[in-house]
């Protein structure tokens, strides 16, 4: 067991391309940290740097009380689950799990008991142990890949988008299993994904990355409720937050570009009156009223989700989506009134994108 600390970690490729621009965070012992961001944001690179598969240009990576910058992957006491599982295709399931232990000269009985234990924890049928990876289903392969990580009893688990090859249903199931397993073993874990739902549900601690920098670090709900930047606000949540441009009229009022006024809590924002801002409203926080009441949303399309509906429309020409519950009725399917509570409005500086 160990905590993981990154201190101003940087990566610049020989060609001069900087992939990681000084990232720092600390994952407490036993914590589940998810690195999330769009593709190309550097999250996989960062994970591979922690694993020792990618060199570190600058900064320190610490696992437990050791700085591991120069250590080989094996010496870092980590285990990794790869995106496409990376199971050795010519070895049996048993050999796949035992390979690393054998290379470390673990005594045979010890290997046997550890593999058996891993199989038991993962509910892998012992009959599967003699099969080759290609004879397994996607979910089974996923378990074997995790088994290979578990038998090592590492200080840290690293997951590189491990669920992206599974179909939607299995992905949800495996997501729950990974979380349960991690709780049970209590092993510090760092998990990379581009899927914000996966990120929200798995993490104790979420690190949102964008273009090689951290946008925000914190607990999932904290990030969801108080996104620090427009990027985080737009990235977390599905359907995504609506953004409306406007100017600050007073500390409690924004005038939208479209001319309407929206109440808000700019609080102690130090911005002067007339500053350009972006107002963010989550679809589920906008309230539906009768046509004519509040702001008018011209409806373009209604998506039925079963658990509710998404109303896509335009607010004076700007696209906006509102989520409503299954019981809620719409008076008209052409236009509807919208009310936006002041505490539902996130205000961001239009220039820096930072939260006000």
């Amino acid at each position, binding site marked *: 067991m160990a905590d993981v600390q990154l201190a101003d970690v940087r990566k610049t490729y020989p060609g001069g391309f900087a992939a990681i621009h000084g990232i720092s965070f600390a994952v407490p012992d036993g914590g589940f940290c998810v690195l999330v961001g769009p593709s190309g944001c550097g999250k996989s690179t960062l994970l*591979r740097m922690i*694993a*020792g*598969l990618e060199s570190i240009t600058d900064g320190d990576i610490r696992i437990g009380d050791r700085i591991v910058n120069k250590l*080989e*992957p*094996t010496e870092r006491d*980590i*285990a*990794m689950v*790869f*995106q*496409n599982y*990376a*199971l*050795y*295709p*010519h070895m049996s399931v048993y050999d796949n799990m035992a*390979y*690393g232990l054998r*290379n*470390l000269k673990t005594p045979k009985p010890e290997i046997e008991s550890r593999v058996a234990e891993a199989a038991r924890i993962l509910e892998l049928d012992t009959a599967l142990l003699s099969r080759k990876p290609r004879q397994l289903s996607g979910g089974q392969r996923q378990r074997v890949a995790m088994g*290979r990580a578990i038998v090592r009893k590492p200080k840290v688990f690293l997951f590189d988008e491990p669920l992206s090859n599974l179909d939607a249903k299995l992905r949800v199931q495996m997501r729950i299993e990974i979380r349960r397993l991690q709780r049970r073993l209590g092993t510090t874990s760092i998990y990379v994904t581009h899927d914000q739902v996966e990120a929200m549900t798995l993490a104790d601690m979420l690190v949102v990355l964008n273009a090689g920098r951290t946008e925000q670090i914190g607990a999932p709900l904290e990030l969801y409720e108080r996104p620090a930047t427009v990027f985080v606000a737009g990235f977390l949540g599905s359907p995504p937050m609506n953004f409306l441009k406007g100017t600050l009229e007073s500390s409690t009022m924004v005038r939208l570009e479209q001319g309407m006024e929206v109440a808000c809590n700019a609080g102690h924002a130090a911005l002067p009156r007339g500053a350009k801002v972006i107002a963010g409203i989550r679809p589920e926080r906008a309230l539906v009223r009768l046509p004519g009441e509040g702001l008018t949303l011209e409806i373009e399309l209604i998506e039925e989700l079963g658990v509710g509906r998404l109303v896509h429309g335009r607010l004076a020409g700007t696209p906006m989506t509102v989520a409503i519950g299954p019981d809620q009725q719409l008076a008209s399917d052409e236009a509807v009134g919208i009310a936006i509570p002041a505490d539902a409005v996130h205000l961001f500086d239009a220039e820096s994108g930072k939260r006000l």
Partner: protein
Amino acid sequence: MIENRRWGNVPAHLVLIVGVIIVAFPVYIAVIASTHSAETIANGQLSLLPGSEFIENYRRALFVGTSSTTRALVATMLFNSFVTALAIAVGKIAISLLSAFAIVYFRFPFRKTAFWLIFLTLMVPVEVRIYPTYAIAANLNLLDTYTGLAVPLIASATATLLFRQFFMTVPDELTEAAQIDAAGPLRFFRDILLPLSRTNLAALFVILFIYGWNQYLWPLLITTRDDMQTIVIGIKKIVATHDALTEWQLAMATAVLAMLPPVAVVICMQKLFVKGLVETEK
């Protein structure tokens, strides 16, 4: 089929059958001739059906030799061919595997240079540098040795390029998983890369065995003693003892024996053979 032809596939079958007959005819005649007596052939009375001298001809070719010359026995030459072909195939595969592994899985100064040094050998077939190569082999005392027959033909770019290409398709994650599993380069090579290359290895072996077996010019130069000859050279020498004296029934028996191993390899391992042929030409 896209449309119904009036004659079905009869024309296609006819063309193919004629093709097969044309392709098989010279060999068929060789087999037939190897079962007749010298007189039948010399008198131009060879028929299209087997004769009665099968056992006698093959016994003489294999273990007695032709009467007019003191050429080596076919059994000896078959053995020489076998050793040479095996050494060439195994040797080429071994050194190519290692060099391809080095070029793909390591970064080191002069890597590109090494690659180009190997790659350029594609452009210099043995035929165009035959005498200087011979001189070097002679200086190294390799005349009339198996080493001399095989080693100069072992280095070539084809196998290296093939393995390089195959290694490039092995997912990086497998290598990384092995690195995390505490496998060093040699262990990775032995435990992961070699087993994954099995099919390619076998396919290449088939092609290279045939290549080695069918070598002509190099063995012709490097061997001076009859008992070091390979069978492909031996048969030419049996024939070249000039016309009327040629014991055609023995020459044909020898030819059949010389064709048998590589043809058997092609037919029995057709899948591997086709794969090997197509891949080496990529």
